[in-house]
C-alpha cells in the first residue's frame, strides 16, 4: 500500500514536471513575439521595434530556453526579480510572472480568485453527490418501473443538452427576464465579507451546476448500483436473512460507491481546475473567468499560470483518486 502510494506520487511528480515543461515550451515557442502584448499594453499601442526588442530582452526571451525554464521553476519555489518595462520589481514565491494586463504578480491575483472557483466547485460537486447518488440508488431499486423509466429518459435528454446552453438560458430567464430577487445578483462576494451575499451570489450557479451534474451522477449511480445489486454477493447477503436495507446499503451501495467515488474525484478536480462556463455565465470572478479574460487580452503569463495550475490540480486529483480507490478496495490495497 505504502509502496503503491509512493509509486503513484513519483509518477505524479514526473507528470507535473512534464506538464510544466510542455506549458513553458508552448508559451516560449508558440507566440512569435511573446513580448508584444506587454509592449503594446505599456506603450499604449506605440510599440516599435526598439521597444519590442527591449521588452523581449527584459522578459528573458533572448536567453537559452532551458536556463529560462530553470529561472521560471526557481521563481515558483523561491521567487525572483522581474523587469517589466523600465522597472525591476520583486516577484515573491510562488512567482508565475507579472500579468501583462494589470502588471501585478500573477499569484497575487490568483490568490484572490481561487476562493471563488473553489466555492463554485465545492457547492456544485456537493449537489452532484447529494442528489445524484440517492436518486440513482432509488432508481436502481425500482428498476424497470414507470418512474425509473421516466427518470432515466428525462435525465438522458437533460444531460444531452450542452451544459453552457442550459446554464445560459437559466441565467437569462431567472436574472434578466424574471429578475428573481434572491437569485439575480450572481457574482462572487468573499465569504468573510458577507456570508449572505456570498451565498446568494453563488446559489444559482450551484443549483444549475448541481442539477446538470446530478443527472450524470444519477445515471452513474443507477448503473453502478444495478451492477452491484446483480452480483452474487448480494444474493448471499439476502440468503443470510439480512434486512433489505442492509442488503442494499451495506452490501450494494458499498460496492457501487467505488466507481462513483473514482469518477467524482476526477470531476471534482476538473471543477477545481476552473469552472469556466459557470464563471463566465454567472459572472463569477474565479480562475476560469480570469483565464478567459486573459486569453482575450493576450495576457500570456496569466494563461500560462492558470494552465499550470489546472494541470497540477488535475494531476493531484488523479493521484488522490488512485489512493482513495486503493483504500476503498481491499483487493488493491492488500496486493
Amino acid at each position, binding site marked *: 500500500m505504502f509502496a503503491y502510494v509512493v509509486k503513484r506520487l513519483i509518477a505524479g511528480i514526473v*507528470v507535473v514536471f512534464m506538464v510544466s515543461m510542455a506549458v513553458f515550451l508552448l508559451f516560449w515557442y508558440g507566440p512569435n513575439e511573446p513580448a508584444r502584448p506587454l509592449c503594446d499594453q505599456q506603450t499604449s499601442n506605440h510599440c516599435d521595434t526598439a521597444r519590442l526588442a527591449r521588452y523581449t530582452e527584459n522578459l528573458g526571451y533572448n536567453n537559452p530556453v532551458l536556463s529560462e525554464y530553470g529561472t521560471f521553476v526557481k521563481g515558483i519555489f523561491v521567487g525572483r526579480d522581474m523587469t517589466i518595462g523600465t522597472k525591476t520589481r520583486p516577484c515573491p514565491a510562488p512567482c508565475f510572472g507579472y500579468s501583462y494586463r494589470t502588471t501585478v504578480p500573477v499569484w497575487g491575483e490568483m490568490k484572490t480568485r481561487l476562493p471563488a472557483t473553489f466555492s463554485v466547485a465545492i457547492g456544485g460537486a456537493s449537489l452532484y453527490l447529494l442528489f445524484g447518488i440517492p436518486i440513482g440508488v432509488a432508481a436502481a431499486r425500482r428498476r424497470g418501473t414507470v418512474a425509473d423509466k421516466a427518470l432515466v429518459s428525462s435525465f438522458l435528454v437533460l444531460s444531452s443538452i450542452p451544459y453552457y446552453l442550459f446554464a445560459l438560458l437559466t441565467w437569462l430567464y431567472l436574472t434578466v427576464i424574471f429578475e428573481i430577487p434572491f437569485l439575480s445578483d450572481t457574482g462572487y462576494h468573499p465569504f468573510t465579507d458577507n456570508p449572505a451575499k456570498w451565498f446568494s451570489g453563488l446559489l444559482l450557479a450551484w443549483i444549475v451546476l448541481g442539477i446538470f451534474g446530478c443527472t450524470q451522477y444519477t445515471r452513474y449511480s443507477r448503473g453502478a448500483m444495478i451492477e452491484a445489486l446483480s452480483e452474487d454477493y448480494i444474493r448471499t447477503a439476502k440468503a443470510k436473512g439480512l434486512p433489505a436495507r442492509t442488503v442494499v446499503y451495506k452490501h450494494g451501495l458499498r460496492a457501487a460507491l467505488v466507481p462513483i467515488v473514482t469518477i467524482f474525484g476526477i470531476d471534482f478536480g476538473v471543477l477545481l481546475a476552473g469552472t469556466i462556463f459557470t464563471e463566465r455565465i454567472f459572472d463569477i470572478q474565479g480562475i476560469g473567468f480570469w483565464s478567459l479574460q486573459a486569453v482575450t487580452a493576450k495576457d500570456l503569463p496569466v494563461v500560462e499560470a492558470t494552465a499550470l495550475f489546472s494541470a497540477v490540480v488535475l494531476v493531484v486529483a488523479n493521484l488522490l483518486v488512485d489512493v482513495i480507490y486503493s483504500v476503498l478496495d481491499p483487493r488493491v490495497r492488500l496486493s
Partner: protein
Amino acid sequence: MSAQTAGPETLGHLSEEPPPVDPNSKQAKTITGKSPLRIAFGRLARDKIAVVCAAVVLFFVLVAVFAGAICSIFNVDTETVLATTRVDFLNNGLPLKGPPNHGFDPAHPFGVAPNTGNDNLAFWVYGCRTSLMIASIATLFASVLGVSLGLLAGFLGGPVDKIISFFTDFFLTVPFLLAALTIAPIVSQRFATSPHYARIQLIDLIVVLSVFGWMGIARLIRGEVLSLREREFIQAARVLGMPTRRILVKELLPNLVAPIVVSISLMLPAFVAAEAGLAFLGIGVTSGISWGQTINTASNFFEVYPLFLWEPLIGIVALVLALNLLGDAIRDALDPKTRR
C-alpha cells in the same frame, strides 16, 4: 490516472457509463454473432426515437451541405453591404424591419442581427456548416488516431502498449476545454493579422479536438484487440502462418466496427457542443461564422430580441440532442444487455 471525466465543465463526455474499475466484475462482452451489425441495424430501424433522431441529423447534414443553395433560394447571403440600411442605431442597433419589433420580413426570414445587420438565416445555415464540418473532420481525425494507437497498443503490447497507455491516461486527465483555452491566445498572437486567420482557427480547433478526443476510442480498440487476439480464430490464423498485418486487416477490422461506431456516436455530439461552446467563450471560431458566436452576441440582446438567441440555440440543442439520443440508441442496439 485511469478514469474519464464527465462533469458539465468538460464539454460533453466521450465515455458513456463509468469505466468498469472492478477487474473482477464479469461484464458481458459484446457477443459477436454472425452479423451483429445487421442485427443491430434491424433493432435500430424499429426504434422510433432513433429514426426520428436520424431524420433530424439528416436534416442538419443537408442544411450544412447545401448551405449555399439554401441561401440563394431565400435570396440571402452572409455579406452585409451597409448595416444602416437594415438596423437602427438610434434604437440600440435593432433591426428596422422584421423581428423583434416589425413582424415578418420576407427578405430576411430569420430576421437580421442587431448592429451588424447580418442576415440570421444565412448565418444559421453557415453556422450549421461550420459546426458539422469541424465536428465531423475532428471525429474523423480522432478516430483514425485512436484506432491506430489502439491497434498498435493492443497488438504490439509490451513497451509500446505501456507508452501508448500512458499517453492515453495523460490526455484523459486534460480536459480539451483547457487545452483550447491555453492554445487560443498563442494562435491569436501569432496569426491574428494573417489573411488566413479564419482557416487557421478552424485547423486549430480541429487539431485540439482530435488531439484531445482520441483516447476513448483508443481504449475501446485496445481492449477489443486484447480480447480478440486471445480468440481461437486469430490464434488459428497465426498458427497457419498468416503475417501479422494480414491478420489485422482481414480478421480484426470487421470486429472493430462496433467499437468504432460507438466511439463516433459519442464524439460527434461532443464535438458539435464543444465547437459552439468554445465559440461562445470567444476562444473558438471568432473570425468566421459559428452558432456559438451568435449566441454569445445574442445573449446581450435577449431581453429585447429573444428570437436572435433562440435560432442558433435551437440549432445546437436539436443537433446535439438528436446525435446523443441516436448514439444512445446505437449503443443500445449494439449491446442491448448493458442497460434495461
